[in-house]
């Protein structure tokens, strides 16, 4: 049960940083507000653009991408300050570290998703069991971004984590179909987007919100596959770091 004490510490470290709350929860909520107010004020805007049922799932995924930044920075800072050296000399096992760093991300992720969907409810997203299902579908997405954070924090310095995480956040935003329909560009660009997990993440949450249950699994399987691969890689790198 050593990981419970460690995960509680990690949750406090992240929550006590006001920037984490501002970016992780506030930023996607502000974007939903802005886009929906803009949509309401521009009468000629095509009705399918930034439709709340499509845009809110995208923003929920976008919000979760900040987990990579939070977790990566936390681990890199721990390494930088010798805090991890103290812990590596303690009886904690590799599994304690992985669980201790990953588990606090789940409640934070659920809070992020809840904030996005609650905001969307004010703009006409109907509340149903599908909304709750969407939150469940977002859990593997949160696991994927946690794995990326664990990987970056294990191999990069604090400043490098900041840069690479920003790149991942941007890739997750622009190649996932949040801002524009990927069919508008199509071709190689669309194929590349669907080789990555981010467009699948958004599509699986959209499918959950709209009640298109058959479309959830094919998309979320991509996300889970990526999450598993990145976790294996991250655990390998972290364990190597423990011994070096």
């Amino acid at each position, binding site marked *: 049960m050593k990981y419970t*004490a*460690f995960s509680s*510490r990690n949750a*406090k*470290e992240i929550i006590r*940083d006001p920037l984490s709350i501002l970016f992780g929860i506030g930023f996607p909520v502000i974007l939903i507000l802005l886009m929906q107010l803009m949509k309401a004020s521009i009468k000629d805007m095509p009705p399918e653009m930034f439709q709340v049922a499509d845009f809110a799932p995208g923003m929920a995924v976008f919000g979760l991408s900040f987990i990579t930044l939070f977790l990566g920075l936390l681990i890199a*800072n721990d390494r930088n300050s010798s805090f991890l050296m*103290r812990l590596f*000399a303690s*009886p904690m096992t590799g599994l304690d570290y992985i669980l201790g760093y990953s588990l606090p991300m789940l409640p934070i992720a659920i809070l992020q998703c809840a904030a996005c969907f609650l905001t969307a409810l004010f703009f006409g997203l109907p509340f149903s069991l599908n909304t709750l299902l969407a939150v469940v579908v977002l859990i593997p997405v949160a696991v994927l971004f946690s794995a990326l954070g664990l990987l970056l924090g294990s191999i990069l310095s604090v400043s490098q984590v900041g840069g690479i995480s920003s790149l991942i956040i941007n890739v997750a935003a622009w190649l996932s179909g949040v801002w524009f329909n990927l069919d508008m560009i199509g071709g190689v660009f669309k194929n590349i987007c669907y080789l990555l997990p981010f467009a699948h993440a958004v599509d699986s949450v959209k499918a959950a919100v709209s009640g298109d249950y058959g479309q959830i699994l094919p998309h979320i399987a991509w996300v889970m596959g990526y999450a598993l691969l990145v976790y294996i890689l991250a655990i390998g790198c972290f364990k190597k770091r423990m011994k070096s």
Partner: protein
Amino acid sequence: MNGIEIINLSKTFKNRTAVDALNLSIQQGEMFALLGQNGAGKTTTIKMLSGLLSPTSGDAKLMGNSIVTQTAAVKQIISVSPQETAVAPKLSARENLILIARIYGFSAKDAARKADEMLETFTLTERAKDKAKSLSGGMQRRLSIAMALISDPQILFLDEPTLGLDVRARRDLWKHIEQLKGKITILLTTHYLEEAEALADRIGIMSRGRMQIIGSASEIKEKTGKVTLEDAFLALTEGEEALQ
């Protein structure tokens, strides 16, 4: 049984030998200071003894437990206070102490009780609720050592405990370290020769990964024919700088 028994311990990094066939016995309750210039092998020795690095060859027994074959048992009875202050910055002083106690298996109630005892011992009670990052350098170092002691270790490794502290904070910390003499086995590394002379029962001077001499400060001065420990240190490590 000795607290620490080092037998032909060596560590090689590619083609550089950091620690070369080190042999050393430290009695239970003894405070032993390891001196040497940068790169002499002090920190590498501590890292091997605390299970952070695997030795290339040789072994060490800590309270009879091998660092090669009984790493888990070793980690349960040791504690490390790393060279740099290793505290969780956004946790309060009390939360930092409770975290470490919980990691070493104390119940929540016992961890809280031990934390309060440590705060009292290290005169940190008034700042118990303040975040660790807001404490002065001297207080952070005291907290770091308190965190190392809260698990009731049988062996404590203090790596440069007063590095970077002003004279008053250093003397203050000496008082706390002196109180530990005879109670637990302590291996201390330091660059401050007067610190070793004031605190340690015996001193070992390492150069180029090898132990050059072991004895009390007066024995070392007598054996080298020098008036001060500094002169003896310089004589024993002569030529090392040219090789670095």
